[in-house]
């Protein structure tokens, strides 16, 4: 059922009277600076607004309401305490430019978070400022460039990216003024080492890798990959999107990565919020320490104990990436999460994420689904390919995804990575029960059965949601991006 727009519920003269000053103050700004007409904003009562957005929220699938096995997104439970504690008045009301002396509580949390992230990743230093994974990637590539320029090798502009990489990787390389060299992935999911040897050279800035890869399998030759790239004078960048698979079992620093970005909104369970905010904190090895983006929290013997490291402390820093210090509230949530998990809890994340993924993979394989990489262990996620069914039954990954919605599950990631045709990338995460995964497997079996017996009906899914399948072509052709009063 379509919910009318808040504008359609508005009536001239209505507003939430309790929420704005009682009087219209005078100000002496001359007319030439002022608007000629007021902006078009809603005019609704407070109850209308409450009802409108509450009802809109009820149209969403979310982790709190549905199993959400979106591969590569790590949709694990977002603990409520993280939100409550991050929004305590002392944190939420603090101005970012307030004196350090009156921010020691917040700064203590940030410093300890930096230290914990160093420990779990095996890196030497951390900056919390990048505001999302993509900004973390930008940071990493920018630091690699700064390193080569500082060493008198500004011609090192080639960034090697596996063809299975997330789109942000090549997009980032371009944003940093680099050139992308794509590397093929082998049939069993590992990088083609011979192709890598041919790709590296005097112009190599570095390689961007995810491990486990976007294919859901561990890069078994990682030590050799590191040797080849370092041997050619390039550096290694680790895309930490899949950190959940190895947290507490393997440290990227031990795999010889020079820089890593973490997705705190994945691995460290900060909320996805309908598309953010995230945090792309970065960790570096010794080579890149001088180039970290600022500000970073320092700790000293004097007063105040915690303080900001800025341009003066880090003259070779690549600079600032945000107006203040990044997504502080997200960082506080990650801090609370890590404190609640503690050492033992963090070791268990990878174990149970991997157990769940391998269990679900076994159930689906036993039910007759074709795996993207049979014979390989699942990491925290795995790929099912529907290429056979798309030929024999004309059912696509999209059809299965939409049908899953009717069964009460959010669909897995579809059509990524691009390498595997008609694929579903499935990541249950460690916070799901065994029964939930059994129910999901049963739903997949039921959907396949429907594909065999009533494909036309299947192709019309979903039927039980606020809308049926949407016309994307029309959306792009007849652009309607903002409501206008008619």
């Amino acid at each position, binding site marked *: 059922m379509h919910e009318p727009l808040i504008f359609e519920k508005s009536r001239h003269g209505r507003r939430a009277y309790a929420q704005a*000053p009682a009087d219209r103050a005078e100000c002496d700004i001359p007319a030439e600076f002022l608007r000629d007409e007021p902006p078009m904003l809603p005019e609704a009562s407070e109850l209308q607004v409450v009802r409108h957005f509450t009802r809109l929220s009820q149209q969403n699938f979310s982790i709190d309401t549905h199993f959400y096995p979106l591969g590569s997104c790590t949709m694990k439970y977002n603990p409520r305490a993280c939100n409550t504690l991050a929004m305590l008045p002392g944190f939420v009301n603090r101005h970012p430019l307030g004196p350090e002396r009156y921010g020691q509580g917040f700064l203590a949390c940030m410093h300890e978070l930096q230290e914990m992230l160093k420990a779990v990743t095996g890196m030497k230093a951390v900056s919390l400022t990048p505001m999302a994974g993509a900004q973390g990637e930008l940071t990493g590539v920018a630091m690699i460039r700064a390193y080569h320029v500082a060493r008198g090798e500004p011609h090192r502009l080639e960034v090697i990216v596996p063809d299975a990489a997330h789109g942000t990787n090549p997009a980032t390389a371009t944003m940093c003024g680099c050139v992308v060299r794509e590397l093929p992935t082998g049939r069993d999911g590992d990088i083609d080492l011979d192709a890598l040897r041919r790709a590296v050279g005097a112009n190599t800035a570095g390689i961007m890798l995810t491990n486990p890869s976007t294919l859901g399998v561990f890069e078994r030759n990682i030590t050799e990959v590191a040797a080849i790239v370092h041997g050619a004078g390039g550096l290694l960048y680790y895309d930490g999107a899949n950190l959940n698979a190895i947290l507490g079992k393997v440290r990227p620093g031990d795999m010889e990565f020079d820089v890593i970005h973490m997705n705190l909104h994945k691995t460290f369970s900060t909320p996805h919020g309908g598309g953010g905010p995230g945090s792309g904190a970065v960790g570096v090895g010794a080579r890149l320490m001088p180039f970290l983006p600022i500000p970073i929290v320092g700790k000293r013997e004097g007063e105040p104990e915690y303080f900001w490291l800025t341009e003066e402390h880090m003259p070779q820093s690549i600079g600032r990436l945000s107006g203040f210090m990044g997504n502080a509230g997200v960082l506080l949530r990650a801090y609370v999460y890590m404190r609640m998990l503690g050492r033992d809890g963090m070791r268990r994340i990878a174990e149970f994420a991997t157990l769940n993924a391998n269990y679900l993979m076994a159930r689906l394989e036993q039910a007759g689904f074709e795996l993207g990489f049979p014979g390989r262990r699942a990491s925290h996620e795995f790929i099912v390919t529907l290429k056979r069914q798309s030929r024999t039954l004309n059912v696509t990954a999209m059809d299965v995804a939409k049908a899953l919605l009717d069964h009460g599950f959010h669909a897995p990631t579809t059509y990524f990575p691009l390498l595997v045709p008609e694929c579903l990338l499935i990541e249950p995460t460690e916070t799901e029960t065994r029964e939930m995964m059994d129910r999901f497997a049963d739903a997949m079996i039921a959907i396949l059965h429907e594909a065999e017996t009533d494909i036309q009906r299947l192709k019309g899914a979903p039927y039980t949601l606020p809308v049926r399948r949407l016309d994307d072509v029309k*959306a792009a052709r007849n652009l309607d991006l903002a409501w206008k009063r008619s």
Partner: protein
Amino acid sequence: MPFIPHTEEDIGDMLAAIGVPDVESLFDEIPKELLIRDLDGIPDALSEMEISRLMRARAAKDSGLSCFIGAGAYEHHIPAVVWDIATRGEFYSAYTPYQAEASQGTLQTIYEYQSMIASLTGLDASNASLYDGASALAEAALMAVRANRGTKSRRVLLAAGVNDTYRKVAAAIAGSQGLTFERMGLDSTTGASDPGALSDAEDPPVAVVIQQPGFFGTLESVHELTDLAHSQGALVIAVVNPTSLAILAAPGRWGKQGADIACGEGQPLGVPLSSGGPYFGFMACRNALLRQMPGRIVGRTTDLDGNPGFTLTLQAREQHIRRSKATSNICTNQGLMVTAATIYLSLLGQEGLARVALTSCRRTAELVELLCSIEGIDRLFEGPHFHECALRLDRPTGPVLEALAERGILGGIDLSGTHPELGDALLVCATETKTKADLEAYRDALRDIMS
């Protein structure tokens, strides 16, 4: 183990179904020498009760001061409804709306947000957010270079009032693609830009950035500057405060043609100060530049039954489709903050937002009058201000601010470090959250300190 539901029985059954003896076997593809035994440097787990106690103590340390700092982040009243609803699980723990049918709540909210931003800025289309105001400027500059086919220049000229941190961030993000950022001079009487650098340009810039209100709270002659920039073949990027747009001229109406891109920091719209983030960057543009705009965009369309619905659109601009040729690498944006801002704007409406703007402007004027009644304090700039004002002191600013803080007042920011050419200067801001009593308390404390 917190948040992990498995019983011993579950584990046993699952291992049997997989066909392995233990969980360790599932890691047998990882080279043995990489597997670690233990995690050093991570303390033992805390229960929710224990971490709550720790966090409450830390938050309490940072509380209790009256804030007169602006400089890009502003304290406004946030209605209780805003975060009560924004933190509902269905908004809070939802993901990017890639499966549109299961995300109509988020998608419609974003569409309504886009409509409000388009109207506030007076432009045709808005995106679904960027990270913050500073990075939005970086993206706007890159967008202007892509869109301005009339020149090969990568010189971006900034008006005097553009926040200097924004300049640094833009240089850090866009510098590697060859963009340079220069400033116009500051007229030391009015605190507005001296457009000389723009009129004399032998090498006209690709874009001119005008911040309104400026960093010091002063107001620029946006119509003249916009026309001048356009006459030089430059695109105009407006960096604007969204609260001020309730009463100040919309960028789309600047000069004869209007600004081409508008961006800025959305934090004032229902997002708390929260030590600097998460905030959100907004961006809007004229239709002609739409396909160069970065970030997600939601469009309204119809479904199989002909009913209205919302979906992400124009995705061919984005990284997951265009990869190395994308307009930007941005993926995750600031969705939850946009949800909050949309609820905030719905509650306030144009009249409520105008009152917040007017009252804030008024309170700052009242504060400035009270403080300037103290010997040794003057305004730095003449001319109209919005809700911030730069003051000149007859002594170093730092110790004055420290003394104020000891009395529970964060008096503003010390400009003498970042803007030494202004001398001993202080930037103060008073919003609608301050009462007459608050302003008088500031005056009394400062008078005491100065005597």
